[in-house]
């Protein structure tokens, strides 16, 4: 796996992180990695299940909100712990952004997975996707 390009920032109650990437796609992947880093800590074996993700949202921030919310939903409902995130494309048509990709992982095994912190939801608070030198950054606060 590539070196993580995200960092956690101090917050009194919730978890705040900033993810970077040389492309929008990579930035989204890093944000997903950061969010799952909050939920679970430990050696996940080679992923054996993969889910396709296709989303359409108005605005880039909404797309990130929807993307991370979708992953949380799949985690809880399909009981999948994700360890790899692939965003193949983020395309813009007018004000609509479309994301195509997949997430891979394995079924929840409470005996083996070390769950750390429950992430209740992604918030809109200070949610930002910005262009920066050499790529993009995403600033996210998740409710824990």
């Amino acid at each position, binding site marked *: 796996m590539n070196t993580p390009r995200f960092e956690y920032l101090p917050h009194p109650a919730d978890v705040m992180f900033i993810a970077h990437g040389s492309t929008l796609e990579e930035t989204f992947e890093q944000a997903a990695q950061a969010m799952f880093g909050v939920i679970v800590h430990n050696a996940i074996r080679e992923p054996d299940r993969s889910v396709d993700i296709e989303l359409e949202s108005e605005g880039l921030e909404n797309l990130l909100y929807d993307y991370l919310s979708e992953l949380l939903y799949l985690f809880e409902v399909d009981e999948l712990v994700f360890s790899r995130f692939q965003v193949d494309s983020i395309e813009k048509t007018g004000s609509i952004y479309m994301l195509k990709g997949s997430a891979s992982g394995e079924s929840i095994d409470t005996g083996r997975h070390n769950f*750390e912190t429950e992430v209740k939801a992604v918030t809109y608070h200070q949610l930002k996707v910005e262009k920066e030198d050499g790529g993009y950054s995403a600033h996210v606060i998740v409710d824990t």
Partner: protein
Amino acid sequence: MTQKQAKDFVRKVDENIYEVPMDFQEGMRVPGRIFVSQKLMDDLETDTLRQTANVATLPGIQKYSMAMPDAHFGYGFPIGGVAAFDARDGVISPGGVGFDINCGVRIIRTDLEIGEVRPRIKGLMTELFNAIPSGVGSKSRLRVSGSELDDAFTYGARWAVESGYGVEADIEHCEDGGFIDAADPGKVSERAHKRGKPQFGTLGSGNHFLEIQEVDKIYEPGIARAYGIREGTITIMIHCGSRGAGHQICTDYLRVMEQASRKYGIKLPDKQLACAPANSREGQDYFKAMAAGANYAWANRQVITHWVRETFEKFFGRDAESLGMDLVYDVAHNVAKLEEHEIDGVKKPVYVHRKGATRAFPPGHHDVPAAYRSVGQPVLIPGSMGTPSYILHGAERAMELTFGSACHGAGRVMGRGEAKQKFRGEILEKQLADKGITVLATHPSMLAEEAPEVYKSSSEVVNVMHELHVARKVVRVKPIGVAKG
């Protein structure tokens, strides 16, 4: 704005009352009111002041945007934020309720004396820990059908009692009878249904807990008697919410409100404050879905109560009735309610948003259960796992000062990441054991996140409400056993 510059704006108007004036931030429609002691004011973050001011910009806000003594930086509204919006011209905002809709707390009394329980606390906690699923990824013992889930969304604790999880008196002792009648499961998405089903009957994680406590101090014997509480006995406190169902309802409607704010031309200082006019389709849809989420949480706490009773029955070899395991009260922390309040001498309907705040209705209020009406509603304020919790009663100035609201807990002062670096779960467990507190958790790092030091002093917070006569101290309880998710 620096911390000092921000605080220079704030003016002390009375003991424990500070005002954030309207020139603090552009667009404020009313001033902010912060109910804190001098010490708590010194510790308050600028961001909390800013969030209180942000709320004051929303259309239809009445009197003040308020922050309770345990207030801290959240998202949208501060945690500990209270605001009332005109039911006709005001707004409803999911950011004023939070993701964990009706995260709340209940307390069960018992006739068990501390001497009967303390020597066996480890065994009891282990049984409770096994009986009540907790932690991330835990699975419920409950298997409900789609229509049962809809009934829980519609009828809350009443559904649970009618399905065999509790007794009629439990419902009478819940805020609003354990359900909001505006709920409509048809406004709850398929996704929220799907997240709610497997988690129904689970405690959750984070600050949620189940605690066995010793009643160690009585401030108001007459009122304590009305609540059925005797010194030296044990009580059980349950703190949890609407789990994934509520989180998803908020997630879904935040997106709806984001569009609605633009549609209705509401200028927002923070996107997390997305809202819609209370009487719009979007506003009412959210209110009906939020009510369903709140009802799910009441049903959840009721089912867990039933399992707690079962566990005690098995453990002590006596039935719950002979153990005197009556529900004292159940309060919601994160909820919006349609209530009638007197504003500038006129009674009018308002949507009161309480985010990390507890309702605290005074003596004589018709929404207080008949048995407690003469003394006021029980107000339950949990401490952290090593510090006392309090039972207060809604007092005479609550309606005038806070729309009948009080604080909801101690309030965090330290982030989870920092706490995990600073504390070690295993050491904390030992320190708490030395103080006579047995703690069980699904993971030691969970204990570090919830270390007593990461919270403000519950006594300091409670004293502010007490001194203001918003909610007055009745009983103090101390933890002897804690189960954390």
